[in-house]
């Protein structure tokens, strides 16, 4: 009996202890000190912390606590906090560009209007597509940060072995011929793609062609003749057996490391993956811009990128804005983020730094950052809208049925119809 009482008491004590265990720190501003809280993932954490050290030279009373959260986990936390009425949220959050509009639509009062705080003056420092993605009704709600200008990451040795000159590839048709040559002589695929689960190549092609799942007015644009053209090109590569089907992200990395694909079309950020995972292949890599659809056509594209948003519920909105303005518009900060963390800036003044003309040894002494930087100004705006994830789902279905033998125009029409049902958006007729 005694033993039992002791156990009950111990458990009660344990419960009390648990409840009493509080590590609450509200970061209250006694003696004028302000601690900002930011949510970000991966390399962005270090970039924010280093930028704060630079900022503190002039603003010694400010500090930042960056919580390192997995990229997709940020959205779970952010959505929960916003849905609960703005509790448990940070002052600053990093959001990918394709998510910004859906957050603004779902939580119109959740984020600070940055134009009211004065961000409009920086407009000319960012490429047009970044500005459009970061704003709603001509007001900024996000500060443009990194970008993912598109390129073909290719293996020099494979191209050399097949005797293909990269500079001669200007159009997708050229690349198709080159791919056939490579396949014949080396047995290696031209590119890799997760045929049934993701569509990055299709998205970059649409972006090149100046269209997207949706148009500027928010209407569904998947049946646009150019979209059909892009899907037909992907089908052509598939039918000639030039596409290595990979399984998800890890499959892509695997194909990159083991040399079973000659080229990988991706955003500039793929540089980081290559140098991290494929260390043994140093010097064997190169980059060329995505081929155009017709001679002299647009070769600029973008895949990925993110921007910073300030929470409306933040009690330190002004301080958060000022620090993030410094972070996103100060060239030195952006150059640091690029050099130390591989985060490709969208701030145009940053491109004057040395690193953008440097020859990169890992990439056969090619100045790859210059290639990417030069591309930025020509990137068209992809209109993600709030229904991007549904659009993505349907575009992937269209691609999958094309690989299953469906005609591209029919597959896209079917996807567009379903998309119209699911989002109640207008469907453009051609």
């Amino acid at each position: 009996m005694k033993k039992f009482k002791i156990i009950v008491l111990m458990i009660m004590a344990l419960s009390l202890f648990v409840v009493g265990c509080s590590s609450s720190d509200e970061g209250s501003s006694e003696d004028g000190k302000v601690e900002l809280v930011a949510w970000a993932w991966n390399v962005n954490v270090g970039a924010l912390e280093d930028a704060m050290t630079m900022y503190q030279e002039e603003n010694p009373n400010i500090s930042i606590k960056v919580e390192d959260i997995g990229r997709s986990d940020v959205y779970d936390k952010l959505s929960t906090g916003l849905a609960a009425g703005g509790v448990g949220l940070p002052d600053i959050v990093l959001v990918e560009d394709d998510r910004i509009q859906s957050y603004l639509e779902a939580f119109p009062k959740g984020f600070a209007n940055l134009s009211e705080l004065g961000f409009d003056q920086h407009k000319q420092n960012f490429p047009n597509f970044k500005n459009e993605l970061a704003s709603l009704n001509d007001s900024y709600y996000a500060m443009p940060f990194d970008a993912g200008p598109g390129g073909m990451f290719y293996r020099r040795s494979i191209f050399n072995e097949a005797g293909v000159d990269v500079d001669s590839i200007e159009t997708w048709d050229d690349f198709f011929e080159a791919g056939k040559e490579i396949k014949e002589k080396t047995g290696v695929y031209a590119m890799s793609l997760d045929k049934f689960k993701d569509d990055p190549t299709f998205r970059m092609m649409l972006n090149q062609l100046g269209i997207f799942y949706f148009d500027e007015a928010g209407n569904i644009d998947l049946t646009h003749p150019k979209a059909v053209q892009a899907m037909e090109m992907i089908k052509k590569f598939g039918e000639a057996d030039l596409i290595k089907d990979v399984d998800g992200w890890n499959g892509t990395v695997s194909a990159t490391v083991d040399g079973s694909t000659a080229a990988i079309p991706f955003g500039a950020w793929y540089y980081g993956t290559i140098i991290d995972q494929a260390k043994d292949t140093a010097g064997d890599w190169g980059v060329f811009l995505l081929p155009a659809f017709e001679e002299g056509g647009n070769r600029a594209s973008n895949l990925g990128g993110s921007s910073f948003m300030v929470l409306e519920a933040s009690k330190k909105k002004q301080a958060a804005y000022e620090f993030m303005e410094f972070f996103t518009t100060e060239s030195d900060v952006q150059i640091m983020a690029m050099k130390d963390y591989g985060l490709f800036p969208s701030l145009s003044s940053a491109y004057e730094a040395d690193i953008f003309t440097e020859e990169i040894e890992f990439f056969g002494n090619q100045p790859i950052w210059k290639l990417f930087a030069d591309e930025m100004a020509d990137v068209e705006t992809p209109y993600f809208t709030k229904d991007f994830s549904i659009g993505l789902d349907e575009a992937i279905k269209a691609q999958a049925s094309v690989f299953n033998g469906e005609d591209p125009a029919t597959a896209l029409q079917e996807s567009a119809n379903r998309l119209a049902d699911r989002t109640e958006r207008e469907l453009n007729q051609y």
Partner: protein
Amino acid sequence: MKKRNVKVRKFGLYFLLLVGALISLFPFYWSAIGATNESGSMFTKPPTLIPGNQLLENMSNLNEQIGIGRVMFNSLFISITYTIIALFVCSMASYAFAKFKFKGRDIIFTIFLLSMMVPYHATIIPLFKMMASWGWLNQYQAVILPNIAYPFAIFLMRQNMLAFPTALIEASRIDGASEWKIFYKVVLPSMKPALAATAIFLFMYQWNSFLWPLIALSSTDMYTFPVALSSLFGLSRIDYGQVMTGVTLATVPIIIFFLSLQRYFISGMLGSALKE
């Protein structure tokens, strides 16, 4: 001739078992190998299957990234505390449901079971609001307390309690034992196997729990192991050496916990075989 047949059959059986064991052990082996090699090596062709020399390097990188000690402490503290409290609460509740007669008992029990059908995600926002209004966000109790009355654990314990002879409880009552004493001295000792099974279940549940700790805990030093591991996944730069090291470390406590309770499992099985 006959003897030989038996031998062949035995050989076949062991061969099948061996294949089964290999298949289920391979992922553990693979992650342990990944932990000792550098990041890109698991993607090479053929895949690397022998231990490398990068374990210390991966460990120190991982430690720098997530703080292994702190995260391990958080996870262990949360899981162990949760298991103790929840086991206590659930066994009492199941005892009441199984052996006491009171008005609305079956209805309450049904409601309890039905609550298992409510998708967990539907309760997250109300729960989050509740925690926020009590000022519990980013504190251990926000993760430990919400699920201490876990319907499935109560169900599991109740099924075992039902099998306990009511006559024994009544006899104890006649002998003058208090209700607490009956519960603690008479009923619980024979429930050890069931308690062990429930404890393993509760511990695993809390140890693997991801979404709620992710949402309720917001600072890096409060993270549990799964949340910290997930933070290793950025957009394009993933150090698989670190990930594999973390995954391997995260399975160790579960294995220890299971092994330490395993004998109750087995004794429970033997015990029920020899009863009466």
